[in-house]
């Protein structure tokens, strides 16, 4: 998911840090997938369950929902990176949820 908050030149990380970073990345992908499942099934699958199979309309809706979900992720992350860059090259640790800690 490096496309989300990519790159930047940082110092060489330790082994534990590299594992933690890889773990965080996997967690991020996994959370994103779980949200995708949640969001797109709600948008595309009516909750009557008349049939066990996906019909054509539902299948196409799911496919488009995935494409749009990725597109929104890209737009939002670009926007947030743009704003972080404006506030000065800053590390991303801050922002929103983190701001309440002294």
């Amino acid at each position, binding site marked *: 998911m490096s496309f989300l908050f990519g790159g930047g030149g940082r110092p060489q990380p330790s082994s534990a840090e590299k594992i933690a970073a890889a773990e965080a990345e*996997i967690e991020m992908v996994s959370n994103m997938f779980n949200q*995708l499942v949640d969001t797109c099934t709600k948008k595309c699958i009516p909750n009557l369950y008349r049939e066990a*199979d996906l019909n054509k309309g539902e299948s196409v809706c*799911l496919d488009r929902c995935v494409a749009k979900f990725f597109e929104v992720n890209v737009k939002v992350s670009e926007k947030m990176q743009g704003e972080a860059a404006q506030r000065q090259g800053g590390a991303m640790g801050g922002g929103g949820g983190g701001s309440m800690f002294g």
Partner: protein
Amino acid sequence: MAGVGGLNAAEQRELQGRMEQKQMKDFMNMYSNLVQRCFNDCVNDFTTKSLLGKEESCVMRCVDKFLKSSERLGERFQEQNAQMAQQGGMNAGR
């Protein structure tokens, strides 16, 4: 998995172990979301304490449909992810 490239063998093994625990947990979460969702959508009659026939068949169809949706979403997700990676990361690629 692009970002994992920088790990050596020992680090990969350590990560592997954690990922197996995580997969187990993900499966559990998936299972319980499935149950909660299908219960919510299919079970609405509390005048009896046993499942009605129509509630049970609704739950079964719901599970089937949800698994098929998840599978399809997983395939599309991987495709999109691969496509992103190929472009060298959205931002780096510009």
